[in-house]
């Protein structure tokens, strides 16, 4: 019965070891999908390359469907799976700052590691920037603290806050994602770019 680590089925050390292997798989998939290239990543914002949208949302709905089915079969206890907490103010402000960082830098932390791993210097510089940003946050933490802790709503799920079942929301998300993919493919044809 999963999840394995919270249920004590595997030890913490095993968990960390498996984390390493999961990371390998994560990095491999990211790089194979082209996420090591900042130009491919930025492409979604200009229409010419929708890889981010496709991989991201397909990944999210695959995981979601997988979790719900596993729960249905009794293979996993969803109450023990971490659901990100919702701090309304900081979720939005952090997201806005990250969005700016994304369009400027063309990477996000996970993909920048992937890019750095294959030798992309701009990715390595981005990682350097990440450290600067985090150190900055660490030393200026008191400035942010109030905003950081504001509007804590617990760990609600989107389906809960919309008042619908998880499964129904899942279906709606799937449909929304597929529609986005259709639009994205249209955009890719309309704004082609030379290969990079």
């Amino acid at each position, binding site marked *: 019965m*999963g999840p394995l680590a919270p249920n004590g089925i*595997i030890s913490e050390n095993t968990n960390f070891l498996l*984390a*390493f292997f*999961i990371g*390998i798989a994560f*990095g491999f998939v990211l790089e*194979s999908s*082209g996420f090591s290239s*900042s130009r491919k990543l930025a492409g979604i914002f*200009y229409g010419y390359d929708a890889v981010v949208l*496709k*991989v*991201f*949302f*397909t*990944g*999210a709905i695959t*995981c*979601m469907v*997988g*979790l719900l089915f596993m729960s249905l079969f009794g293979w996993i206890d969803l109450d023990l799976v971490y659901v*990100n*907490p*919702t701090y*309304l103010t900081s*979720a*939005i402000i*952090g*997201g806005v*700052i*990250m*969005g700016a*960082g994304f*369009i400027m*830098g*063309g990477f996000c932390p*996970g993909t*920048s*590691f*992937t890019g750095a*791993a*294959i030798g992309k*210097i*701009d990715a390595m510089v*981005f*990682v350097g*920037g*990440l*450290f*600067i*940003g985090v150190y900055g*946050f*660490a*030393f200026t933490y008191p400035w942010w603290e109030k905003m950081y802790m504001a509007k804590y*709503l617990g760990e609600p799920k*989107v389906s809960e806050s919309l008042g619908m079942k*998880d499964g129904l*929301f899942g279906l709606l998300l799937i449909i929304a994602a597929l529609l986005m993919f259709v639009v994205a493919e249209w955009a890719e044809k309309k704004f082609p770019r030379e*290969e990079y």
Partner: protein
Amino acid sequence: MSDITKTERSRRYLNPYLGGVLLGLVLLAANFIAGRGLGASGAIKSVVATSIEVVHKDAVNTMPFMAEYAESHSGSPMRSWLVFEMLGVLVGGFISGAIAGRLKLKVEHSPKITSGRRLVFALMGGTLFGLGSQIGRGCTSGSALSGMGVLSLGGFITMMAIFGTAYALAYFFRRNWI
């Protein structure tokens, strides 16, 4: 490598939907095994916290950031799931790049700008992203992707904020990309 045409090279990337399914399965495995999703920015936080502690042993008492970090992480700050995961990401990315012949030390940039300019923006972008990921309690991997996988409201909100802002600002940075 130079005689392989550019279109052929791009075909060596996985089909994005397949990549997405694989990514989803990796995320699913993480949730099943560890009861948590993937992440990235948290690993940076761990390294930062460790380095601060090494240099300034009493930091937990003097810096509220360190105190807050210590609350949610017992033991050595480097013994964190994300640190091990990100080490794996480096390895996995390297292996994939090696297999596909994409290993090359270079600055990737649009032909319309210089590599110097690209690096400046990479640094600025990284700094902003580092700051934003701390405030937003996660980045696109940890908060947006993993959050959506478990239907977290916070995850969704952060994801929409990231993508919305990037779209809104895309026009101003278009010169860097197209």
